[in-house]
């Protein structure tokens, strides 16, 4: 503690240099923590849904291919299945093309059984079942477009050649995707001229251990049909959806690491310059009786303070920006829920400390071990 004054005074020796170093570390760690948060959040989404008892059953050819609606009864009759909700992608926009967010039409009868963990009120479920034009909206989309319960909205069709007029009867919170909008499939079916096809079936199973059994059973039932199915747990379904982003995540992570390494080298250069300027002072301190280890500790502490100050600033800024981003960009699907996980916060602060310590290690070690007489000659 008695050395704190010495460390602080040396940090303030060149305020501009200290500020610029802290700022550059802060910017690099801002970029690092923001980029590293992306895959971590994706993994978190998967982890949240890993224990799910829900199965997605879709066309084996891909999500854009349809299945006959008649499959629903056969799925419902499969052992261990407690609820089935058919789903069709509508792909509408609210005002213009920039207002995109996932909007889907689902069967209203068993929505409460299928998604009890989505924070929908009892009244919301009841109204959704009662009113043909009802819709349930995720809280992210509600905030984004300043919507409220009871409001009537119109979704413009981009896939279907018609619009749908909907009444908001409830919001979705908790584990629900914050940007989703659900409305009734019977309304869509009628408007589309009853084509009798669906994009996906959500299937709820009695126990999670029965999920593999039901998956196998479903795909077996529809094997060799005109629309073979591929069933998968909700975690696997979201995982496949996110798979398309994997390369992007990897590039983002690599970029983050490169930025940190680059700034580490810049910080090392700054530390070397700062320590080199003080070689004679360090020699004087050693001639007074300061041990090499104490000098090394003091120099590393200065650098550690700079690194951590940059880390806290960068991390804090990234946390706030991601928070604002997640509220303002719900159209990104699961990625819309990006927030800085505590693990990334810890990683970033460790990176900050390492930048501080490693950047100063070699010049500080060299200065602490220098020959006192040679260093004193620098003054003369």
């Amino acid at each position, binding site marked *: 503690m008695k050395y704190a004054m010495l460390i602080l005074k040396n940090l303030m020796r060149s305020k501009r240099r200290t500020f610029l170093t802290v700022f550059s570390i802060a910017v690099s760690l801002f970029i690092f923590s923001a980029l590293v948060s992306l895959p971590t959040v994706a993994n978190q989404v998967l982890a949240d849904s890993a224990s799910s008892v829900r199965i997605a059953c879709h066309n084996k050819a891909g999500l854009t291919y349809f299945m006959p609606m008649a499959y629903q009864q056969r799925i419902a009759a499969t052992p261990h299945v407690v609820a089935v909700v058919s789903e069709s992608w509508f792909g509408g926009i609210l005002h213009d093309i920039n207002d995109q967010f996932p909007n889907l039409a689902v069967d209203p009868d068993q929505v409460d059984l299928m998604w009890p963990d989505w924070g929908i009120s009892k009244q919301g479920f009841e109204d959704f079942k009662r009113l043909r034009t009802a819709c349930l909206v995720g809280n992210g989309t509600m905030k984004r477009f300043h919507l409220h319960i009871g409001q009537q909205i119109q979704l413009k069709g981009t896939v279907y050649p018609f619009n749908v007029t909907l009444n908001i009867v409830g919001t979705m919170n908790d584990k629900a995707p914050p940007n989703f909008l659900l409305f009734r499939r019977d309304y869509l079916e009628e408007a589309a001229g009853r084509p009798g096809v669906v994009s996906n079936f959500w299937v709820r199973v009695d126990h999670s251990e029965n999920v593999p059994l039901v998956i196998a059973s479903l795909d077996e039932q529809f094997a060799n049909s005109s629309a073979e199915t591929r069933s998968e747990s909700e975690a696997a379904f979201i995982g496949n959806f996110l798979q398309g982003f994997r390369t992007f995540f990897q590039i983002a992570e690599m970029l983050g690491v490169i930025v940190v390494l680059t700034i580490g080298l810049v910080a090392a250069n700054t530390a070397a310059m700062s320590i080199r300027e003080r070689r004679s002072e360090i020699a004087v*301190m050693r001639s*007074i*009786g300061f041990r090499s280890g104490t000098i090394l500790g003091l120099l590393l502490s200065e650098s550690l303070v700079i690194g951590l100050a940059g880390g806290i600033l960068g991390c804090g800024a990234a946390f706030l920006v991601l928070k604002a981003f997640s509220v303002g960009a719900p159209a990104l699907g699961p990625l819309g829920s990006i927030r800085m996980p505590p693990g990334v916060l810890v990683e970033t602060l460790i990176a900050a400390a390492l930048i501080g310590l490693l950047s100063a290690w070699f010049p500080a070690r060299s200065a602490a071990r220098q020959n006192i*007489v040679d260093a004193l000659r620098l003054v*003369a």
Partner: protein
Amino acid sequence: MDEKYAIEIDHVSRVYKRDEFEVRALDDVTMRVPEGRFVAIMGPSGSGKTTMLNLIAGIDHATSGRVAVGGEEITSMKERDLAAWRARHIGLVFQFYNLIPVLTAFENVELPLLLTHLSKAERREHVETALKVVNLADRMDHYPRQLSGGQEQRVAIARAIVTDPTIVVPDEPTGDLDAKSAEEILNLLTQLNRQFHKTIVMVTHDPRAERYVETVYRLDKGVLAGIEPGKAATPAQAAGASA
């Protein structure tokens, strides 16, 4: 009566290697400095004065020979022990003051005390006393850049004496000062010697210094060329030096 020696140097040589050349800075020097004396090591440039001071202060190692300070042999000490020894026994004063520019006079003087177990209040008391001795109690919050050369050197002397070391070793303490400031510094060192009984070994080529010291050790080309009484020597000291 047996005289106690603050410094004993026996057959000390110091050879530096500069690229492929060997420089013999000190060559088989033997000398003794009695306790409580104010002595000067004098000689022309390159005579080995500062090398001798560095060996006494324990910041350089002899190539051969034995150096003992305060009865403790330092020649074989490891760097870690030597650092602790310097903190206890040596008060170094440099020609260019070598104060830390970002610290005030008070903080500069406090620096060696950070190595002790003294409390903050005790450190303050010691620093204030040292600054009073050098007559700079009213400048303790000033930074080195706000002080004159003479004042900076006095702060450096306060830093050297604040731990109450066995020996004070000023290296050309007047070398960067005008005549008036140089006189002040030499008077201050005399006061430290007479009032506080500090052994002072000063390296200088300033001829005025001879008036203040009791013994002059003359070095020339790395060898001890002579020991002479200074102008401040008592008759007994003068007789001892001549012998």
